[in-house]
Every structure is written in structure tokens, then in C-alpha cells.
């Protein structure tokens, strides 16, 4: 057992075996002529198609369009989610009146809303952004609610003793105390938003640009090279967003380490 190796934080070369093997097999299979290279395109073709696409200027437009939808939907959904979470968390009445409906609706698969949304809002950016916002709303609202509920009663009592106005209670007690959960919820929301962006672009494909729409059009045109490259780009952006969120999370929650 290479136990010493495992403890080192350095990159373990064994992790590269599988991906390399995949690429070698992929290359070998396609260059040997055993398979239809229209269906299983060689890795080199993916790179060539990707390079062409990146240089065409269409790439930038697609990426920008997707990120714009993602960001707009995320911001709207996050704002609504935090508001809903705060209202549910601070008012028993609001929670009891709207809570059951909110929690029941959560069980409808998010994509099942797309046909209804498209009936009301068409297939353009408006429908897509509403959908992305909706997908972001739930994780953020649930996390915020959890955060607000985790505030200890004695903290409220301190606020009472100091005679905090509701506004002060919100900004000096509730939001800071619930911030770890809220930030975790925002992180989750970011992942959901990207997923929803791709889902919306696949299912509500319209005339505009976008990463998902590029891929879906690639499918219609049977451009497997473009599909694979598009997938890689989608995955890369998803990972970048996740990485960004992780970094922001640790930085924003840095103070907790000292507080304890």
C-alpha cells in the first residue's frame, strides 16, 4: 500500500490513468476505422471544430448570452429566495399561511414548469430567465429559512433588551446570524442556475445564441464534434462557477473562524 503517497497533497499520477486511457482508446478506435467516425468523431476533430468555433466570434456571443441569462436569473431568484426565507423565518403567520403551498410545490420537478412557462411567456429570454430565477429561488429560500430558524432565542432576547427596531434586528442580528446558511444556499443556487440555464436553452431553444442552443443545434445538424466541444465548455463553466462560489464562500465566512 502506498500510504505515504496518499498523504501527500501533491497530485497523484494514478488519477490521470483513467482519463488518458479514455483518450487513447478514443483515438485508437477512431483512427482504426472500426467505427463510423461521423458518430464517434476523433478527438482531433473535436479540437479542430472547437478551435474554429472559438475563433468565429460566435463562441463569445454564445458564452456571453448564456452567462447573461444565468446571472440575471440567479440575481432575481436569489433576491426572491432570501426575501421569502426571511419572511417565512421571522413570521409564523406567513410561514403557516404560505409554507404548506411552498413546500408542496417544491416537489414538482423543476423542468415540468417549462411547458407552462412557455405557454405564458414564449420561448425567448424572458421565459428562460424566469425559469432560471425559479430554479434558484428554492435552494436559496430553504437555506435562508434554515439559517433564520437556527438563530438562538437568547440572541433575540439581547436584541429585545437593546430595543432594536425591526430594521436593526434584520441587519444586525438576523442577516449576520443566518449568513452562513444563506451563503451556502446561494452557492447551491448558483449550481442550480447554471443547470437551469442549460435546461432552458435545450428545452426552449429559440433563435438567439447560447451555449446550450449551440449544442442542441449541433445535434440537429449531426455535428458530434461541436456537441462534444460544447459539452466540455458547459462543464468547464459549471466548474468555474462552482470554484468561484467555493472561494467566495470561504472568504465571506472567514470571520466565523475568529468568532469561535
Amino acid at each position, binding site marked *: 500500500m502506498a500510504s505515504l503517497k496518499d498523504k501527500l497533497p501533491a497530485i497523484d499520477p494514478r488519477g490521470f490513468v*483513467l482519463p488518458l486511457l479514455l483518450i487513447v482508446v478514443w483515438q485508437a478506435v477512431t483512427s482504426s476505422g472500426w467505427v463510423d467516425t461521423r458518430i464517434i468523431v476523433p478527438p482531433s476533430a473535436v479540437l479542430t471544430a472547437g478551435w474554429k468555433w472559438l475563433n468565429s466570434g460566435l463562441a463569445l456571443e454564445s458564452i456571453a448570452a448564456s452567462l447573461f441569462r444565468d446571472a440575471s436569473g440567479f440575481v432575481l431568484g436569489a433576491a426572491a429566495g432570501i426575501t421569502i426565507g426571511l419572511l417565512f423565518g421571522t413570521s*409564523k*403567520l406567513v410561514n403557516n399561511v404560505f409554507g404548506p403551498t411552498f413546500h408542496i410545490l417544491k416537489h*414538482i420537478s423543476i423542468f415540468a414548469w417549462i*411547458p*407552462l412557462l412557455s405557454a405564458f411567456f414564449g420561448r425567448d429570454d424572458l421565459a428562460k430567465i424566469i425559469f432560471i430565477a425559479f430554479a434558484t429561488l428554492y435552494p436559496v429560500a430553504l437555506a435562508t429559512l434554515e439559517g433564520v430558524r437556527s438563530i438562538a432565542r437568547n440572541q433575540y432576547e439581547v436584541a429585545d433588551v437593546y430595543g432594536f427596531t425591526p430594521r436593526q434586528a434584520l441587519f444586525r442580528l438576523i442577516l449576520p446570524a443566518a449568513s452562513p446558511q444563506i451563503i451556502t444556499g446561494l452557492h447551491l443556487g448558483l449550481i442550480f442556475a447554471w443547470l437551469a440555464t442549460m435546461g432552458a436553452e435545450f428545452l426552449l431553444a429559440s433563435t438567439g445564441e447560447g451555449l446550450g442552443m449551440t449544442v442542441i443545434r449541433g445535434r440537429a445538424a449531426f455535428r458530434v464534434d461541436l456537441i462534444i466541444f460544447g*459539452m466540455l465548455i458547459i462543464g468547464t463553466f*459549471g466548474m468555474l462557477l462552482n470554484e468561484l462560489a467555493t472561494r467566495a464562500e470561504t472568504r465571506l465566512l472567514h470571520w466565523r473562524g475568529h468568532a469561535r
Partner: protein
Amino acid sequence: MSTTQSLDEPLVIEPVGSLLPRISIPSLGNLPNRFGRIGLGIIFPLLLLYLWQIATERVWLPPQLLPEPAFVWETLVDMVSSGELAGHLAVSLQRVAWSVLIGGSIGLAIGFAMGLSKSAKAYLYPSFSLFSQFPVIAWSPLMIIFFGIDEALKIATITVAVIVPFAVATYKGIENVPVKLREVGQIYQFSFAQTLWRIALPAALPAILGGVRQGCMQAWLALVFVELLASSEGLGYLLVYARNLMQLDVVMVCMATIGLVGLVFDFALGFVERHFSRWAPKGR
């Protein structure tokens, strides 16, 4: 139900069967009685229903966009009694079942391999974590090329969605098996199979069941997506088909069914999970 604290408070004497639950709502901090809470929870949906009724009566929106509540109800009754809904539901559930079976087995195998063997982890983990970050949705166009738009596509896509939660939960469950238990196994000189059956599996079971629940929820999510994308039967297909004909009553019935199935999955699997986590080892 969020804070156990409030549940433990001395019982407030309930006005049994009170039809005016609003009166019994205490100010912040007290737990309204159960009747009161259910009553309050029903007010909002009833209000929505009323609003919906008014909106259709006064034709605020064209009836194609907003069918009458009674009409949607009729559609529901029709679809249930004709067996149409059950037929599509059965197709969808069958797809989920196969995918959970296949994806679950693969996920369990990967999870066990990474959890039990350090070298398997060294080989698999980096690729797996990369794989797990790719949304299933992004795979679907490629899957269509490989598998066509038939049954294989759905099973393959949903399977991919199931693998990750199963594998992650299994891996973490085994990773968190208390060292004490592993040491006991070593003292008794358990064989690999014995370690697996008597230590790893029982100790990791609650975590694995958590993964099962996650996996089923993911499967349901992926199913709806892939059926919306390309399908000729199933709930998602019915949803798209009805939308294209602007039969929003059918759309609503489908959405309600999808929600109901999700709810049942969540409750049933959550119940199983809680039942088995009772005897989970607590020591670390």
C-alpha cells in the same frame, strides 16, 4: 417542526375541532395547534383557487391560457378513469426503476471501491469528481447521437444522473465507518467479504439510504427533462404534447402528477432512511 424546543413546550389546550383556527393563533413564539396550522395552510390554496375561478369567469386571460378549474378537474377525472394517465405514469416509473437499478448498482460499486480500497480511490476519484461536476443535462445531446431517441436514451440519461449520488453517499458512508469498528474486524481477522457484509455495509447503510433517496429524486428530475427533450410516451411526453396543442388543462394535470410522485418518493424514502438511521453507529 423545525425546532424541537417548541414541540416540547407544555401543551396548549386545543379548542378541539375549532372551525375558527385564526382565533387560536398565539403571537410569535407559541406553537399554534395542529388544526390551526392545517387550517391556515389551506387558506392560501383556497384563495388561489377562488382567484383562478374569478379570473376565468371574467376572462382576464384567454381560456386557452387559463382553463377553468372545473374543466381541469374534469380532465383529471377523465384521464384517470380512461387509464391514460396511469399508462404514461407506468412508462415513466418503469424507466426510473430500470435506471435506479442499473445506475444504483454502478454507483454502489464505485462507492464501495473508492471507500474500501485506497488504490481504487487513487485511480477513480479524480475522474469521478470531474464526471460528477458535469450536469447530466449537458450529456443529453451526445446521448441522443449514441442511443437515438428511444428507450435506451432515457435509461442511459437517467442512469448517469443516478450514479453520482449513489457513489458519493456510499463512498462517504464507508469513509465514515468508525475506526473502532474496523479495528474490531482486524482483531477478528475478518476476510474481505466479512468486512464488507458485517462492518462496512451495516455501518454505511444509513448514508447509503440517503444516497438512494437523493438518487431517486435525481432520477425523477432527469426523467422529466429527458422526456421533455425527446419522447413518445411518458408523463414528460404528455406534457410537451399537450403544451403544443395548447391543452393547458392536461399540462396542469401532468404537473400535478409529477409533483405527487416526487412527494411520494420523498416521503417514502425519507421514512425508510429515518427508520434505518436509528441504529446508526454514533461513535467515531
